[in-house]
């Protein structure tokens, strides 16, 4: 056997399991999206009807665009809040820095469902947010405004995805050589100039990575909108989920999931591209 043939054989052997467990499942739902369902039966004929139905029906397409917009808002808010936190942690010295980092990252390992539930109780009519606003005299009566709407979904997602944003920004900041900052200060740049012209550009790859995490995670989330969004907090994730449960139209659900998949993949590749350009 030739050397090249041997290498191919090893590759096939090693890549077999990931292909079976990852590539095959994704392919199978891409294929399913081209079939159609009729009275709970899947008709195996190739059709683009599901996609036509999605783009032609504002209920679905509008929900999708609304979800993308929501995810962009989540991403923006998470970066605006997460960047100062990462910067502050980076400014600390010695073991205090890593203790704060650990505290910032640990919520990633806490139960997601639990966080949703406690946030829901905090945002509710008798929740902490209302109590605080009443106490400060900003509100006269407890407000319903914080739960079961898009704003509640936005707030909850930002809180849940913040650690995903803080960590990569911190890692990028930490990679900046001290000597560069020293040089900038020696050359007479003020703190703000150093930040704007050195720290900010060099931390951009991490910021992009963090922003992407928030965006992609928010994009497919169907539990958060259900728990805190109520009937008005509809996102494409919930619509897809309902196609696999109540509606039982798997091919249509698969078509919408394909669009979600392509959107997420586009975001991942875009972020990968901007990060690799930064490294040059």
């Amino acid at each position, binding site marked *: 056997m030739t050397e090249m043939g041997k*290498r191919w054989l090893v*590759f096939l052997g*090693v*890549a077999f*399991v*990931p*292909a079976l*467990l*990852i*590539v095959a*499942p*994704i392919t*199978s*739902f891409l294929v*399913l999206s081209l079939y159609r369902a009729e009275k709970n039966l899947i008709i195996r004929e190739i059709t683009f009807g599901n996609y036509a139905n999605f783009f032609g029906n504002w209920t679905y397409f509008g929900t999708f665009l609304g979800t993308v917009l929501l995810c962009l808002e989540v991403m923006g808010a998470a970066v605006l*809040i997460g960047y*100062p*936190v990462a*910067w*502050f*942690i980076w*400014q600390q010295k010695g073991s205090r820095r*890593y203790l*704060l980092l*650990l*505290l*910032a*990252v640990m*919520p990633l*390992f*806490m*139960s*997601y*469902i*639990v*966080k949703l*539930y*406690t*946030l829901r*109780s*905090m945002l509710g009519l*008798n929740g902490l947010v209302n*109590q605080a606003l009443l106490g400060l005299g900003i509100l006269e009566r407890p407000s319903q405004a914080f739960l079961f709407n898009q704003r509640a979904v936005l707030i909850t997602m930002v*809180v849940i995805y913040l*650690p995903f944003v803080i960590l990569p920004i911190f890692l990028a900041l930490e990679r900046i050589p001290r000597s560069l900052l020293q040089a900038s200060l020696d050359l007479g740049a003020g*703190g703000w100039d150093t930040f704007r012209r050195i720290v900010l550009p060099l931390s951009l790859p991490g910021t992009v990575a963090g922003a992407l995490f928030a965006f*992609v995670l928010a*994009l*497919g*989330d*169907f*539990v958060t909108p259900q728990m805190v969004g109520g009937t008005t907090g509809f996102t494409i994730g919930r619509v*897809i*989920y309902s196609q*696999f449960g109540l509606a039982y139209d*798997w091919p249509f*659900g*698969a078509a919408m999931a394909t669009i979600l998949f392509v959107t*997420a993949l586009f975001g*991942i590749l875009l972020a990968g591209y901007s990060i690799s350009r930064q490294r040059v």
Partner: protein
Amino acid sequence: MRTLGDRLPLWITGTVTGLVFILLYSPVFISLLFSIVEIRQGKILWETLSFKHYVTLWSNPSVMAALSNTAIVALISVAVATVLALVLALYTEWEGALGRRALELVIYLPFLLPPIVTGLALLVASAELGLNRGLVTIVLGHAVFVLAVAYRLVLTRLQALPHSLVEASFDLGAGRLQTLRYVLLPHLASAVMTGAVLALTLSFDETLISTFVAGDQMTLPLRLWAMMRVGFTPEINALVTLVLLVSIILAIIVAWRMQPKGQAEEG
């Protein structure tokens, strides 16, 4: 000497950080508080303080079943993912992989994509194959999901090892398996362990993929979710507190294991 202008950014970002931490940790304190005392009309009734809800938890069969499912799924899926990650990392880093970037993209995909996509893909595939949904499909789902983390950790360690180690081993007459057994694996052991603990914590909490592939089996997060739809009892708060404590302990173990290396690089 620091002027006010230098300190102002620190004060502002410090305040933001403090508020964020309060927000991030409020779930822990709220569930801990609700699990040991009763609260009526916004007032804490300290005289009701007790740990009885923790005790009743042990006699709840559905919770115990979910707990054992979670443990089984976590242990098997992490074992599978760890072995797979080790093989893949050794292959991509030391054997000059064909199509390395494509292979890595595939490995990272389930972690990078929204979980709903991964969950759906596995659901559709198992339906097409006629595979019944249950513990097996949950294990596969979790293995695929945590593979990326385990792979990344092993790969990072592998890249830090000098190639001369392996060359020296070959020069001294060791074969490939002997080199793996006596040279590479001892160096990789701690990275593999860290990856495994990290994967355990992720599997322990994983909810979104499980929703699709669980069938009528329950893991702890799914059980909690189902219980919360009905209402919130002190018993659930006790369970939640225990779940949070276990995840925090696992997270601290991971942090503690990764810490010394980070400091070495600093110095």
